[in-house]
């Protein structure tokens, strides 16, 4: 994938994404990067140095970040607009919807600091609503990588994807989980671990928690739990959800408000399918947290490894 990596090292998605965007710039001269005074945070200064003519910084002006990107897309460019997920999804919400989605433009909106990942910065810097907001915009594709290097495949896929894309990611360093080359397609879930006694449907950092949880569950109970890396929140891979429902035990977990997050997208598929299954959604509860670290928040809300084990064990009892 062109990024020097030593497998097993923890790395943050934004570090990988920031470097990989330069590769995209080399491959396609229509790729431009637009920042709103957070190129450092978004780790794309390499692109800015390498392609100064194709880099724009609108200042702390997220509405303009998105509208300016839309304008560039109207002229045939493929803008990658980087900032924090709460700002791009909320401050620039109407620009994403009216200037980008309504025009079905090839703008790629890249939001880091998704979920509780910026917990200690407080609720202003956490995006707990972005999947609900962005996903409700017509034909907006919503992605969240479950592996730090998956972002390269995602970004690569956006070069030929028709229409607007939103990519969210937390800022924590996470463990690479795919050691070998694999096929990646937007809209096609990845089975990160096989199993038929139950399933975790998850995205982002929760994928690695779910893998650890599945391993522990097998050791402790013998149950084989499937882990589905649902990197495409929208359009969700309905078949993967239906197959998960057939196991009879489904936990959908995401670092996002439970309302409107991955669990809701999965729930709609299950309800439509008519399949009977135990089902639980884990995520951020419907209240704001002033200040706390991300690991603490994952723990109290039970979508860290321990929490996933506990909740699946309860299902296994039934």
């Amino acid at each position, binding site marked *: 994938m062109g990024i020097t990596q030593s497998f097993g090292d923890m790395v943050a998605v934004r570090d990988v994404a920031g470097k990989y965007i330069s590769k995209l710039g080399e491959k396609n001269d229509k790729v431009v990067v637009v920042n709103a005074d957070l190129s450092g945070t978004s780790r794309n200064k390499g692109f800015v140095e390498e392609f100064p003519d194709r880099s724009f910084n609108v200042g702390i002006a997220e*509405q303009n970040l998105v*509208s300016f*990107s839309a*304008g560039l897309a109207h002229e045939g460019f493929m803008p990658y607009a980087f900032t924090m997920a709460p700002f791009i999804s909320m401050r620039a919400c109407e620009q994403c919807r009216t200037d980008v989605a*309504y*025009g*079905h433009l090839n703008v790629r909106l890249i939001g880091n600091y998704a979920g509780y990942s910026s917990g200690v910065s407080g609720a202003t810097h956490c995006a707990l609503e972005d999947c609900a907001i962005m996903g409700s915009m017509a034909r907006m594709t919503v992605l969240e990588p479950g592996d730090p290097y998956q972002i390269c495949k995602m970004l690569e896929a956006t070069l030929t994807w028709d229409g607007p894309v939103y990519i969210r990611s937390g800022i924590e360093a996470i463990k690479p989980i795919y050691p070998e080359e694999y096929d990646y397609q937007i809209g096609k879930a990845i089975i990160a671990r096989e199993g038929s006694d139950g399933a975790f449907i998850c995205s982002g950092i929760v994928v690695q928690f779910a893998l650890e949880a599945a391993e522990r569950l097998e050791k402790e109970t013998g149950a084989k739990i499937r882990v589905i890396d649902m990197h495409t929140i929208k359009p969700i891979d309905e078949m993967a959800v239906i197959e998960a429902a057939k196991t009879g035990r489904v936990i959908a977990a995401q670092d996002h408000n439970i309302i409107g997050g991955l669990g809701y997208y999965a729930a709609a598929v299950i309800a439509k399918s008519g399949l009977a299954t135990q089902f639980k959604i884990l995520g951020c509860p419907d209240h704001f947290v002033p200040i706390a670290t991300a690991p603490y928040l994952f723990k109290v809300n039970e979508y860290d490894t321990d929490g996933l084990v506990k909740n699946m064990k309860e299902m296994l009892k039934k």
Partner: protein
Amino acid sequence: MQSKPLGKMDPEARKKLIARLEKAALKIRKNLLTLCSQQVIHIGGDLSVADVMTVLWQYQIKYDPQNPKDETRDRFILSKGHAAAVTSFNQAAIGCYRDEDIFKEYAGDNGRFAMHSCNLINPHVEVSTGSLGHGLPVAAGVAQGLKLKGNTTSRVYVVMGDGEQSEGSMWEAILNSVHYKLGNLVGIVYCNKLGFDGTLQQITALGDIADKYRVFGWNVVEVDGHDIAAMVEAFDHLPPADFDKPTVLICHTVKGHGVDFMENQVKWHAGRLSPENRDEAIRQLEAAYQEKWGEA
């Protein structure tokens, strides 16, 4: 592609040009009033920008109705999205559609024309607009895109209202367009000094809008938005598209211009005319035209 005469026009040709545009603007107004007796339209704003839009579309802009995607075209973005009817009639005047199409399809199911224009169904709409405060920021991106492609001749015209200047997103773009030296960007603010809730002075006073743009670093031109000759002059003297500053034309206008019971009336921001009121309005416009130019 309609093209402007090059170089200095002789006085006789100029007089003819102004007469042609005056007549064209009268026709636009009559069409608007007729449409307004069929549908609710934003007639107040439409009438206030009718002259500006006529000069822009029927004299200034470089646009081929047969080839709306021509790379060398000028781009037009209606930031004040609800001035859609006056735009559509002007586009019809240069051959994008027929007036009848607008009367027939306006605000109908799957029609190409409505209160706000949409590029998904109308190829002559560059950018879909409606929500205020979006057109200028998008136009800045378009202008930058043209520069990046090496297009040094196309301009991006963006028509804004004065009430719309209250949107914070406008000021992000006003700042940014200077930073990126978008000389191909031409803002046109038509100032009729009325909002929906009253005068801007009563709502949130705008102050001297020309001064504000000037202080931000724009090339500012002020003109009477109902003086067609003055607007032709202003457009003729625009700096070249590769200039190092964006330009804004501040056009002073009157909401509901030309119809005595509509002029400066907040209640005529949007509305529908009775047949009697429509006929009376058209009578007034024709009388004023005849007084100035002879037979309409």
